[in-house]
């Protein structure tokens, strides 16, 4: 990757820093990071330590640094309209960010850049925020990072969402309770380069009432070498959230489709996923979270295997602050079952063909520690 764009972003970042004005900018500058360590005890004990079909926490039966993250950001406001974000990451959870097919040049390095963007709050109406660079992908309910979630391991639905975007975008607060966004981005997988055409994304958030919020994301664009509209990918991610004082429930539903250009007849691939996120605050630093989910990869377009996976995750969380530091300890039980023509999870031993054996069910107990600091 050419260094020019990065140099430009650094220079612009200095300009943003010089734009500091009002005292409230102290609140808007923030820096910090976190370290995510965990151990997943897989009762299948696969020899290759692999969690088949998983993009995050894909190593089991070993103590793993899943994610290390450092960031600095300056938020745009009406008094100081420029903003920027820089964040760098490393760990097992970044390896799957490099696409299997058609990765762009330098993807193995760029996977360590979590954020590199500039933003500007334009004085148009209630405020139009323009952003360019590498920024957060769809605002789906669960984050790519375990730190921000109710459960430790992520749902398959989260793994296979566009969690990062490379491009430009504009977001507008229609009212205090409604926001729309339009983005022109590289591809569904932000580090892919299958073609030179842009893709498009739309986001919508509406706080319908005190307790109810709905989120909707749409993606449409070419993700294959063939760029005819006939082969464009269409994807929808929808969430309905109900939040009370101590209990939160959120239901997410994803559906995606595209015609496969390099197969005779251009057959249509289809995938669908759903998850119910829930968290109940018990008392003090203790919370519990339960998340049933399903992921149907009819043609193996996402997971590489034609399969239906359902899973249930139950998490006990202890969270404590120490000044600017925060420790989150989670004990989690997860059961996954994969069925279908190419379904299954790795189990110890080799099959007759010399390949790792597969079994339908997988049970894993996770112990994780996330140590975060923010200034």
């Amino acid at each position: 990757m050419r260094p020019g764009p990065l140099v430009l972003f650094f220079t612009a970042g200095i300009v943003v820093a010089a734009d500091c004005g009002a005292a409230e900018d102290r609140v808007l500058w923030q820096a910090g990071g976190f370290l995510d360590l965990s151990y997943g005890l897989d009762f299948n004990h696969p020899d290759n330590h692999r969690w088949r079909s998983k993009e995050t926490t894909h190593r089991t039966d070993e103590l793993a640094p899943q994610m290390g993250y450092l960031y600095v950001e300056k938020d745009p406001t009406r008094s100081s309209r420029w903003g920027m974000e820089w964040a760098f990451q490393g760990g097992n959870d970044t390896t799957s960010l490099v696409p299997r097919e058609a990765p762009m040049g330098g993807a193995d390095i760029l996977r360590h850049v979590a954020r590199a963007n500039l933003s500007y709050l334009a004085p148009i109406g209630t405020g139009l925020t323009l952003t360019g660079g590498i920024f957060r992908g769809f605002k789906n309910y669960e984050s790519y990072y375990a730190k921000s979630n109710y459960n430790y391991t992520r749902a398959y639905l989260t793994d296979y969402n566009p969690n990062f975007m490379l491009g430009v975008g504009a977001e507008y607060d229609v009212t205090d309770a409604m926001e729309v966004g339009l983005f022109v981005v590289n591809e569904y997988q932000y580090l892919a380069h299958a073609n030179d055409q842009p893709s498009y994304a739309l986001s919508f958030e509406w706080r319908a009432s005190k307790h109810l919020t709905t989120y909707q994301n749409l993606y449409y664009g070419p993700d294959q070498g063939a760029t005819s509209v006939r082969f464009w990918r269409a994807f929808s991610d929808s969430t309905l959230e109900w939040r009370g004082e101590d209990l939160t429930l959120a239901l997410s539903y994803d559906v995606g489709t595209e015609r496969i250009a390099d197969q005779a007849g251009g057959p249509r691939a289809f995938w669908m996923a759903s998850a119910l996120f829930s968290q109940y605050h018990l008392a003090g630093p203790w919370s519990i979270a339960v998340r049933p989910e399903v992921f149907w990869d009819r043609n193996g377009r996402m997971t590489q295997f034609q399969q239906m996976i359902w899973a249930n995750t139950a998490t006990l969380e202890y969270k404590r602050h120490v000044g600017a530091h925060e420790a989150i300890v989670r004990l989690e039980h997860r059961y996954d079952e994969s069925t279908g023509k190419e379904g299954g999870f790795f189990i110890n031993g080799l099959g007759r063909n010399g390949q790792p054996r597969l079994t339908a069910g997988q049970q894993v107990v996770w112990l994780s520690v996330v140590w975060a600091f923010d200034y």
Partner: protein
Amino acid sequence: MPARVCRSLAWLWLSLAACTSACSPLPPRTIQDDHMASMVRNALLDSRRLNLSRIDVSVEDGVCYLSGEASSGESKIEAEALASRVPGITQVVNKLEVQP
């Protein structure tokens, strides 16, 4: 259970024990802390501003910690202001990250 697994688990539990011991001098969370946290969550829910409902609130010994994500810089400032107005909150530590 394989020896390798036992060693890894033992290492992990020792680390957890050490972490817990290090944290033990911390003041215990009180019922009043939980009550204040509920009041802060209610204040954020009552706000009409988008996405203030998704902020994680924790109160320890009167200090309110706001973490998670805010949709804008203004939201982040408003969340801190709302939390600071709750009776009994002595300080607000604002760790909200704005996600453009």
